[in-house]
């Protein structure tokens, strides 16, 4: 094991008056490879461009209807070398999976295979127009169709809607299908039940679709309170939104029973598939009574997170909801060709609830996800789920002797291990541990989520970490946790070694400065 410091290690701070550590201040503010970078608007010039274009012939006649721009836009430009350097220097202030372990629970920060990037950039995928005649884009339609079929295979569901643009958009798709299905049978229902441990997107989505949201409590062992849920079912309840595996990192073992009860009461079951990576190739949600489930291609199938997107959120649908799937969708014809069903295909579109986005979904993510599935295959995907779950349990059992694991006694966890901050002393909190981990060279885990655990720390290692990397993380995590248990005052000021120290978020919100002024 290659642990950087043994458990209990404390940093010895050498902070000079101007905040620099272990050495004198520099003229530039840089510290060796840690480089400061001004804002674009402080270094760019209005008359500089990094693109060579024909000079503007201002005397040429235009047909702009008298609306030619008179005011300056206020943009600035850089030449190519300056641009590359500016953004390269900015990139070095970021933490990414390529740099180190990124156990952000629920977000699934696994390695992004570079073959996926290469395939998405093939001109046959990257340089085709969404409204090109369909006879000119048969390969693209085949990608959508093939990926959709395999998502159905992996989930045991009969149908899929491919157009949703991200997980929350997929949730919206599923919830709209549920509303449409109820409307089609003249059954107006107003309430969607959401467990209190749910992602914030669940209640936000249900509300966005016009539903009233009611919370369902969790049991002390970290699962949905089935009795409470059943008691609330009735003719006003349109459905439930349940994450499985749930945000406490546990499999909802009573899912089938819940689904049967919801169906018996005339409702539908939405499964938040954000954590599908824990069970892909091992468990088919279709066997558990799911009516709709989104799949975050950027989680389970490792399309890059890109600093906050783009995602992709195809939704698998049950027989009951399939007819209401959004437009457009891809079908295969008798001759082996592929075609889009859009607004005009009146018979085939059936009772579709309509269009959710301008075009056909996140094609660039589809090619990456398809590449990922082809690379892993049925055997590799099963191994993905097993290794992700193994790594999480290993962390859970390697930490629970010193760190409160509220559901550690509930049995094995799935792909993520959940901890709480109840034993920390001297006012230290989860936030301090997270910032301490930054100094150790890690991206912190998800913090303060799920809401059902005080000071939650949700650790998701994923399957793409070696045992050595996980052991090193455990050593570092234990070290920081021990400092929190001992009440180490220095932790309250962490991080010390990142490009920035703690940022004043209160000031940012009080007087928002959201664009460069000057």
């Amino acid at each position, binding site marked *: 094991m290659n642990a950087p410091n043994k458990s209990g290690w404390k940093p010895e701070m050498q902070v000079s008056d101007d905040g620099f550590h272990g050495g004198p201040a520099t003229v530039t503010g840089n510290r060796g490879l840690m480089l400061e970078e001004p804002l674009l608007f402080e270094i760019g010039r209005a008359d500089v461009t990094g693109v060579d274009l024909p000079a503007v012939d201002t005397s040429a006649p235009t047909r702009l209807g008298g609306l030619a721009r008179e005011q300056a836009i206020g943009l600035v430009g850089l030449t190519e070398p300056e641009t590359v350097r500016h953004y390269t220097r900015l990139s070095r202030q970021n933490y990414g999976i390529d740099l180190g372990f990124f156990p952000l629970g629920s977000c699934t920060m696994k390695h992004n295979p570079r*073959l996926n990037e290469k395939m998405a950039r093939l001109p046959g995928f990257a*340089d085709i127009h*969404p409204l*090109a005649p369909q006879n000119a884009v048969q390969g693209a339609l085949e990608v959508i169709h093939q990926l959709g079929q395999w998502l159905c295979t992996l989930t045991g569901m009969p149908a899929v809607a491919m157009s949703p643009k991200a997980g929350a958009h997929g949730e919206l798709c599923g919830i709209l299908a549920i509303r449409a299905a109820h409307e089609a049978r003249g059954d107006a229902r107003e309430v969607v039940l959401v467990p209190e441990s749910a992602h914030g997107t669940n209640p936000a989505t249900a509300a966005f679709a016009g539903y009233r949201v009611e919370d369902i409590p969790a049991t002390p062992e970290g699962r949905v309170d089935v009795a409470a849920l059943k008691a609330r079912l009735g003719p006003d309840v349109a459905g439930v939104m349940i994450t499985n595996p749930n945000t406490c990192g546990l499999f909802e073992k009573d899912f089938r029973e819940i689904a049967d009860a919801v169906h018996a009461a005339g409702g539908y079951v939405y499964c938040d598939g954000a954590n599908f990576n824990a069970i892909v190739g091992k468990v088919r*949600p279709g066997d558990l009574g799911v009516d709709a489930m989104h799949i975050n291609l950027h989680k389970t199938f490792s399309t890059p997170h890109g*600093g906050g997107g783009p995602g992709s959120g195809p939704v698998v649908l049950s027989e009951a909801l399939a007819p209401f799937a959004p437009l457009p969708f891809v079908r295969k014809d008798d001759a082996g060709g592929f075609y889009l069903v859009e607004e005009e295909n009146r018979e085939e579109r059936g009772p579709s609830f309509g269009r959710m*986005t301008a075009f056909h979904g996140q094609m660039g993510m589809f090619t990456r996800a398809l590449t990922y599935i082809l690379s892993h295959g049925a055997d590799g995907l099963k191994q993905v789920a097993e290794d992700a779950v193994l790594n999480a349990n290993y962390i859970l059992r390697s930490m629970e002797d010193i760190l409160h694991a509220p559901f550690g006694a509930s049995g094995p966890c799935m792909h993520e291990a959940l901890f709480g901050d109840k034993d920390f002393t001297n006012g230290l909190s989860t936030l301090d541990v997270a910032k301490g981990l930054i100094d150790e060279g890690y991206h912190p885990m998800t913090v303060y989520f799920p809401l059902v655990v005080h000071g939650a720390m949700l650790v998701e290692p994923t399957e793409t970490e070696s045992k050595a990397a996980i052991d090193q993380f455990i050593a570092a995590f234990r070290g920081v946790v021990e400092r929190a248990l001992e009440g180490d005052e220095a932790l309250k000021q962490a991080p010390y070694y990142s490009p920035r120290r703690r940022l*004043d978020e209160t000031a940012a919100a009080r007087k928002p400065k959201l664009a460069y002024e000057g």
Partner: protein
Amino acid sequence: MRYLPLTDTDRQAMLAKIGAASIDDLFVDVPEVARLDGPIHGLPMHASEMAVERHMKALAAKNLVAGEVPFFLGAGAYRHHVPASVDTIIQRGEFLTAYTPYQPEIAQGTLQMLFEFQTQVARLYGCAVANASLYDGSTACWEAVAMATRVTKRKRAVLSGALHPHYAQVVKTMAHFTGDEIADALPAITAEPDLDGLIARIDEETACVVVQYPDILGRISDLTPVAEAAHAKGALLIVVNTEPVALGAIRSPGEMGADIVVGEGQSLGVGLQFGGPYLGLFAVRDPKHVRQMPGRLCGETVDAEGKRGFVLTLSTREQHIRREKATSNICTNSGLCALAFTVHMTLLGERGLRELAAENHRLACLAADRLARVPGVEVLNNAFFNEFTLMLGGKPARAIIRDLADRGVLGGVSLGRLYPGVEALEHALLVAVTETTTEEDIERLAQELEASIKETV
């Protein structure tokens, strides 16, 4: 398996630490009925890079690549030249493999980039504040309508007939479920948009008027009277832009009084990609509306040492804090596409964007003049930027487009595809021209169009 670092020895050691006899012991909570014994049926087994690459290349080869033929498609997605350095930057692992900057101390790269992005978008749109992106132009359009209903506490949106029909459909899909009322219309096939008709549809119940600029037929007109009419009735003006390059040549929506400006940012940096991922842009002219905006916002602040830094801010609007009371359910947005946009925009700068816009317009004028000389063809627009509408003298545009594709020319988007079943629009063709179009491409389109029209009944 090349992506999985654990060895069997590792796995055994880890199971021992956990106290589990086998991996299946970790899946005991999964009901028997849902557990699969072996690898799932219906999928191939794992494959080498080489084999996967072969498979994907075979699929890619079945598509007609835009860059390899004369290409004139637009209607909300435009083919522009993306400088090589854009892709180099967005493939840096520190950007590509980062996530939403929840830990700002180690995400200043993404955050500063977003602050630059927000500034560029706000200035391009003539607005005060832009957000850190949404999924695409069409979803941004609905978010704008939803925001207008919150701001005005009214439930009726008036859509211009010349709004992209897919955008209008997205708005109508959502409004059906939220109970908002959408008044839409078909575009009138006229040389100038019917702004008086639009203004006449605004009343005291109207939350917002939604106008596209340039519109779906490529027309451009001064929207100041629409803004004034909307404001007089207490409604907001939402302007939708699907071609940001246009704003290098024509007045910004903010200058004309738009309250919310949304659009598609795909033209800069992102590429065609068969429709996604794209880049939703969203901005407001008046800072007082900031707290009703959807999506993430990046703001400037200082760190504990007083150094300037950036954070996600005003999060109390968002789903992870406000849950069902959030302004939107959006979480993941289009971060990497925003980076591509910003790098491309930085390379262009004020001067480059204006030159790029001028070149687009010059070539579009050239194409309009040449195509107008094709027998049976008329240019509808009085004014346009880089896209205009051709009337094909009663010939069916969809059939002609398919025929042109068979002749190796991607000739445009037929209005019949966008407005299926509307007879009045079946004979119109949208033609987009960008800096990637050559004069030879234009000549080729003119000749093939002439031949196709002659042969099409």
